[in-house]
């Protein structure tokens, strides 16, 4: 057979495939798009924009809308923004009371400050633990690195909640640590660790450490070792070289790691609720209480909007430094 005669089956199949290729939906779609001045590249970049539009911008606008409405005892528990006053007049009611309320009641700004300081302290502890870890992994023999990275990521294979509950088992009064300490006779009474700030920091640092280690590892691994040799050659001692060469050149990783820990830690709800004490006023907890205990959706939405803006500022700083990094290495 010579590649399918005019009456053979392969000919039919080949013809069909060729026709689909020539007139099929892809070709048709791309022809239609290019006729309207769009290329395939536009189509591909449209996907993330569409995603953000649907799952970020639209919900954001809904929450924004609720935050400027008024509470009512109904379903949904807030007043509509637009009301028909008469047949052809639409009334618009915007209510800034909720935001004013956030300022008046010290509970809200105190819990904001508390969340930010808790997140900041956790981020610093993560950085102090994570940097040596990332450095050690990046400087270990090439064969070991993937295994060590896998171990860093291994906790993700079990549920986050399970891991927090495991910490309860470790830290509680008749938990692992206290039992060991009492069995060894080091202490007579259990040390109270659960439901303290100490336990909360352990939980946050433990949970978010991988997010710190991974970007730091990427940054340190890229660092050219000959730069450190050059510094040593020019008379710079190792500790000084670390601060003058390694830290500035891994700045992008440090910032990325800090953002990845700080931003979710500000809104953290589960860990303070399970491990922290009753005085651990975190904004995530306040949000929960407004939504589910007080059923005050407008105030809860206002809290969420303010929290978003508190977080947008560090993200913008991060974006700017990323832009500078890109400019520097072009």
């Amino acid at each position, binding site marked *: 057979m010579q590649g399918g005669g005019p009456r053979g089956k392969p000919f039919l199949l080949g013809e069909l495939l060729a026709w689909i290729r020539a007139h099929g939906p892809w070709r048709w779609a791309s022809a239609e798009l290019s006729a309207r001045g769009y290329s395939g590249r536009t189509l591909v970049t449209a996907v993330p924009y569409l995603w953000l539009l649907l799952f970020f911008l639209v919900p954001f606008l809904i929450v924004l809308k609720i935050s400027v409405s008024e509470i009512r005892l109904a379903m949904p528990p807030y007043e509509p923004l637009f009301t028909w006053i008469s047949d052809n007049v639409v009334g618009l009611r915007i209510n800034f009371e909720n935001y004013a309320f956030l300022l008046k009641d010290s509970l809200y700004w105190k819990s904001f400050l508390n969340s930010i300081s808790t997140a900041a302290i956790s981020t610093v502890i993560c950085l102090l633990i994570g940097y040596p870890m990332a450095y050690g992994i990046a400087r270990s023999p090439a064969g070991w690195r993937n295994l060590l990275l896998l171990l860093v990521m291994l906790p993700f294979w079990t549920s986050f909640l399970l891991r927090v509950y495991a910490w309860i088992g470790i830290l509680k009064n008749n938990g692992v640590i206290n039992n060991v300490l009492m069995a060894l006779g080091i202490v007579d009474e259990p040390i109270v660790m659960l439901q303290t700030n100490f336990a909360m920091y352990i939980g946050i640092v433990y949970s978010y450490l991988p997010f710190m280690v991974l970007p730091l590892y990427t940054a340190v691994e890229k660092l050219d070792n000959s*730069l450190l040799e050059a510094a*040593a050659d020019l*008379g710079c001692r190792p500790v000084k070289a670390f601060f003058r060469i390694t830290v500035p050149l891994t700045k992008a990783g440090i910032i990325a790691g800090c953002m990845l820990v700080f931003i979710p830690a500000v809104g953290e709800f589960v860990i303070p609720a399970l491990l922290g004490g009753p005085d651990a006023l975190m904004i995530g907890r306040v949000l929960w209480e407004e939504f589910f205990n007080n059923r005050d959706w407008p105030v809860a939405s206002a809290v969420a909007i303010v929290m978003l803006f508190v977080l947008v500022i560090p993200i913008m700083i991060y974006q700017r430094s990323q832009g500078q990094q890109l400019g520097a290495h072009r």
Partner: protein
Amino acid sequence: MANPRPDQKNEPWKDPGAQPYVRLEKLTKKFGDFVAVDDVSLNIYRGEIFCLLGGSGSGKTTLLRMMAGFERPTEGRIWIDGTDVTGTPPYERPVNMMFQSYALFPHMNVQKNVAFGLRQDKVSAGEIDERVMDILKLVRMESFVKRMPHQLSGGQRQRIALARALIKRPKLLLLDEPLAALDKKLREHTQFELLNIQDKLGVTFVVVTHDQEEAMTLASRIGVMNHGEIVQIGTPTDIYEYPGSRFVADFIGSVNLFEGRIVEDEPDYVRVTSDELGGSFHVGHGVSAAPDAIVWVALRPEKILLSRERPDGDGDNRVEGVVAEVAYRGDQSIFLVKLASGRQMRVTMPNTLRQGDGDRFRWDDRVWLSWDSSSPVVVTQ
């Protein structure tokens, strides 16, 4: 032209009383089972440009890194200016290095890169500025102080790396493939500039290179390395004209190597028969080898003359062949001549006249090859 004049002043290695500036004593470096540097002993004298020449994996860079302090020798000692520095960390050695990748700090501008070494020594700010400008003038980069490394070309980075390595006025400068990243024209130009700077500052240079032309141009002496050992040390002329082994003869330049046997052994000449070459040949220097030992005759392509007619004179050192290949290189032509034994001889001739004058040799021409009896070198290993 570029090499130091061969007078006694510039050849301290010939003076038994001279103190070496760098002394390597039975240095060995092993990485696991792999022996990178194998029992190397070497003396380098003040003001020398010493080139370590070898292929990749020959151990030349490891040897250099041991001098800089980045690798600790498994065995042996390193002395610099009379001090044992074997265990001294790099940041305390009176040595600076220019890296093959240049290793400029990407987050610092030219000024900060060059000043880095002085900053470590608590030199006053005014003196730092002054010395940075001086050294940048020396490498003709004074108008680039505020540039970042990524804004510089390869040649400019090379100059900044050199300036940074020179700013602390080291007594010994180590250069790891200093010119490898430059294109050919710039490389040749920079070679002479390096010589110029070395002459001005009187620094001792140790240069690692795989480029034999670079080594020949720069070096006062060359150490040829193979498999972690130094196989020959000598001036560029020594290495080229009097190779001590087949490896050196073959590594430096191109060479015709023939296996042979010594049939006449006199103090001032030997006669070697070679089946490959087809006859017996007169070599104008004595050889210390056992009679009937297998030796190799090394004959440089440019030392062979081609002629159509059998050259006059006695019958020694001439052989007939057929031109098998001709390659025109502009400045010279390369001929491969097939001998009766089937071996090919490489012959180069400078193109002193313009091509096309009819008297050049063409494919399948029968030609005579002849050479002076002082030209071949007999090596025994």
